[in-house]
């Protein structure tokens, strides 16, 4: 029997603008990618969810602060609480932090400039559903494009996160002023991850790098395992 195609939802908030790239990239990696409108109170039957990049609700007040109240975000929170896999990219990462699904907060870049370029990322963990295709210590090249990507958490929080191995990716060179060059983190349980770089923009060598596919294909694979378990 052919293994089932995992179903991965991509939440579309007003102001999301990387939703289509995420849908496209997940489909290219052999998932059935499903758009989820922000007004949905319940998620369809899904094996994983992606919160895409963009400027949800205009990023008014603080990035991700308003998206936290969207019906779909509440549904994603329940999904994550039940152990579902959730990946937040860029604005999606900001939403996860504001919603309390991930620790810390993302602040305006130290340089005050919007940063849009390929950056090196060092993989700190390769045992998560989002990183099984990566190797710990290796450097990936994936683009960032953000004005508010400086991850911040107080020292005691960072120490706890180090202890729980919640830091997944670090910038290989200083990028936006993030504490300890943090680029991607996960929750304690390891089923929710957020990162500022855009793996969906790096899934084909034609785009400059295919390293983003390592992260998204890991997610697709984990989602497929989930689908198989349920089948």
């Amino acid at each position, binding site marked *: 029997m052919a293994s089932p195609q995992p179903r991965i939802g991509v939440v579309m908030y007003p102001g999301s603008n990387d939703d289509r790239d995420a849908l496209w990239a997940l489909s290219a990696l052999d998932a059935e990618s499903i758009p989820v409108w922000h007004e949905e109170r319940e998620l369809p039957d899904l094996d994983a969810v992606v919160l895409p990049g963009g400027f949800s609700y205009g990023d008014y*007040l*603080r990035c991700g*602060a308003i998206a936290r109240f969207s019906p779909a975000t509440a549904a994603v929170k329940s999904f994550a609480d039940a152990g579902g896999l959730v990946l937040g990219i860029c604005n999606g990462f900001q939403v996860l932090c*504001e919603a309390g699904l991930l620790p*810390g*907060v993302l*602040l*305006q*870049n*130290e*340089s*005050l400039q919007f940063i849009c370029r390929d950056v090196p990322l060092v993989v700190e963990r390769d045992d998560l559903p989002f990183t099984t295709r990566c190797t710990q210590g290796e450097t990936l090249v994936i683009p960032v494009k953000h004005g508010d990507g400086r991850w*911040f*958490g*107080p020292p005691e929080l960072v120490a706890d996160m180090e202890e729980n191995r919640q830091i997944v990716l670090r910038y290989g060179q200083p990028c936006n*002023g993030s504490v300890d060059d943090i680029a991607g983190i996960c929750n304690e349980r390891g089923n929710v991850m957020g990162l500022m770089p855009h793996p969906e923009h790096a899934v084909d060598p034609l785009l400059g790098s295919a390293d983003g596919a390592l992260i998204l294909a890991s997610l697709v694979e984990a989602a497929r395992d989930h689908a198989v378990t349920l089948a």
Partner: protein
Amino acid sequence: MKATVLVRPKSGILDPQGAAVETALEHLGFSVSGARVGKVVDLEVASDDATEARAQVEKMCEQLLANPLMESYEIELHG
């Protein structure tokens, strides 16, 4: 009852906007230090009772207007 909420970056948090403003003021010839940039939210609460209004605005700050990790807030009520 009218209320004003002042939201400030907590001390110790790097505020690049404040730093940029400070540099710009120095370029204008002012001698300044410690510039920080925050936000002001003006709103009108549907209550005439100051204690009740303050309690409501406190909740608004905790739930939305400020992120306690990085921001502190101050509430002013205007009769």
